[in-house]
């Protein structure tokens, strides 16, 4: 891209054209409208994104925990009936490696612990709590191993409809929140990039549209001041059919085949009318 072309693009984008006149007032409202619309889009999109990501990711982790607890509950029936607790422990140890799962414990039908993954011991809140529930429960644990300290959401699944006991799976809410925050941050970052590109592009096109108007305005003002000479004083109609032997600022405007060109020619026509003797 040549330097002059790049300069023109920059001027168009920033509205800093080289002409004396700039269309400020006419497009102020337009620019404000663009900002407002884009801002509204960003706000609404971000809000929807935050809500959707938060809900879906949180639900996904909760669903994972539910699936894992029900999988363990299904797979542990035979092991439980055989009282093979080391195999039961080996089974739950495999699931503790799943991201987001912080602890798993299994209680029998009397609430007695059969296997768990807690270190350095079973938290008091859990040891003394009710273990027969199946709905999600929020817990705050302290004094545990680092990955088992903090806020958790715990789900339970019955084994043999509860007659065999219950499997409980705890998901680390901090990890879920971190994931949600990271996902939302990425979404908002993308929306912001789109916003700035959109605003930049809008200003560019507004300025592109404003440039001929600025030239028309400049031409009209010079015409009114009488500074602009009539290039067609020889009687031609100003459409370029007559030879133009010198450069005139209004030439480019008069030569346009759009509405701006028509207006410029009308201005010139009115000027000629007003200059005719007796008018």
């Amino acid at each position, binding site marked *: 891209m040549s330097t002059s072309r790049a300069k023109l693009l920059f001027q168009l984008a920033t509205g800093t054209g080289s002409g004396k006149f700039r269309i400020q007032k006419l497009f102020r409202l337009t620019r404000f409208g663009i900002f407002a619309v884009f801002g509204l889009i960003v706000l609404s999109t971000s809000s929807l994104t935050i809500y959707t990501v938060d809900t879906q990711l949180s639900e996904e982790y909760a669903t994972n925990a539910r699936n894992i607890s029900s999988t363990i509950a299904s797979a542990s029936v035979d092991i439980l009936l055989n009282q*093979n607790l*080391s195999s039961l422990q*080996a089974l739950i140890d495999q699931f503790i490696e799943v991201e987001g799962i912080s602890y798993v414990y299994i209680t029998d039908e009397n609430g007695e612990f059969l296997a768990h993954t807690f*270190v350095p*011991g079973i938290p008091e809140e859990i040891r003394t709590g009710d273990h027969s529930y199946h709905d999600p429960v929020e817990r705050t644990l302290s004094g545990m191993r680092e990955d088992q300290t903090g806020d958790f959401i715990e789900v339970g699944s019955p084994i043999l409809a509860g007659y065999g006991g219950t499997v409980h799976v705890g998901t680390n809410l901090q990890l879920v929140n971190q994931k949600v925050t990271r996902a939302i941050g990425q979404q908002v970052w993308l929306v912001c990039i789109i916003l700035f590109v959109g605003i930049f592009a809008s200003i560019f096109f507004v300025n592109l549209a404003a440039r001929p108007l600025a030239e028309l305005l400049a031409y009209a003002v010079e015409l009114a001041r009488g500074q602009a000479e009539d290039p067609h004083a020889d009687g031609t109609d100003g459409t370029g059919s007559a030879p133009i032997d010198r450069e005139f600022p209004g030439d480019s405007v008069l030569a346009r085949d759009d509405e701006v060109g028509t207006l410029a020619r009308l201005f010139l026509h009115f000027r000629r009318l007003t200059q005719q003797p007796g008018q």
Partner: protein
Amino acid sequence: MSDSARPNPRISRRDMVRATAGGLIGALTGSRALRAAPAFVRRVGSDADSILLGVSAAFSGPSRSLGIELYRGAMSYFSHINENGGVNGRRIELKVYDDGYQPDPCVENTLRLIREDQVFLLFGYVGTPTVTRALPVLKKFQDERAYLLFPFTGAQPQREPPYGEFAFNLRASYRQETAQLVDRFVEVDRPRIGMFYQADAYGRSGWAGVRGQLATHDLNMVAEATYTRGTRFTGSMRRQVEILMDAEPDAVICVGSYAACAALVRDAVDMGLRVPFANLSFVGSESLLQLLTDDMENSEAYTSLLVNSQVVPSYEDASTPAVLEYRDLMQRYDPPPPEELLTEPYDTLARSFVSFEGFLNAKMMTEILGRLDGEPDRSGLEDAVFSVSNYDIGIGSLVSFGPNRRQGLQTVYHTVVDDGRFVPLLDWGEKFGQ
């Protein structure tokens, strides 16, 4: 004589999951189709000159002493056998892999030993969390009859359905070890028993044994504290000690590795908890003792409270024929650890309960291989094992196997520290009575 290597990266995680899940599902569903014996079993793992055994054990990490010493004890006997013509003219060779006492590498090693190395049998595995995860692999490849013999663990999974049929054990179980410890503590009026255990299948196996035996006395565990597998001696156990102290126990039964158990004893004594600390055979008594005595100011206080359960008699007992043979062969061959697998320097132990168990495992293994008729064939292994009845292995207890008896020895021994070494505990009342 031994061939050692790192785990094979070509075994993918998917293979491991398939094998483990397949075995698990087959075991849980009890599929008769899966159990059906194949019409043809390939003869693998042996030729005219040798029989290849596959080993996956801890040769690195905090529990490496167990894998290394078990291997050294076995190699002392196999070296002796090979030097004297082998088993029916065949040398016994070991293919050795390191699993670092971690389940996933153990599964990976087992797959490689069965599928690629085509070993005749799996032998001398170390640890419950590792063996427990390898058992479904044996179930998955049951058509190939890949048996595991004499793993260094007393857990139940390889002694009971659905996986018991794929393993043969020599040593007594953790259930037997913990039962005797509980009984002895109750006898000397120490009924308030707390537990410290590894948060995995090994710890749970010991926990279940203690819980079950306490129930026979109408007692409950007064406290339980756990630690993460792989914890080193430098780690703090103060939180665990606090949990135990809150319950004011009369004794603590530890089901862990030597590094973690030594750390617990150290912190407990330092914090004022002075009760007997009982450890199971898996702990590695000499390594535990070494940690609590080397460069420790309070070593007498730390070690005076130890009582360790053993599944082999004391290697200090010169009246036992197998002990004399073990001491002679360990001195003669002094088997080196598999150098390729060592990630850091290791000072071998001249004698230990672990290497003595490895020696006895090798002796029993040799006896069974010698009972195979003709060409060594996996299909004849069960009959060979079941033919062992009241076999005198040289420790005073006789070894017997059978279709409903997949554990050869049943005896448990107790030892305490005296003059810087573990010796038999003869009088519980005198030592720990109150």
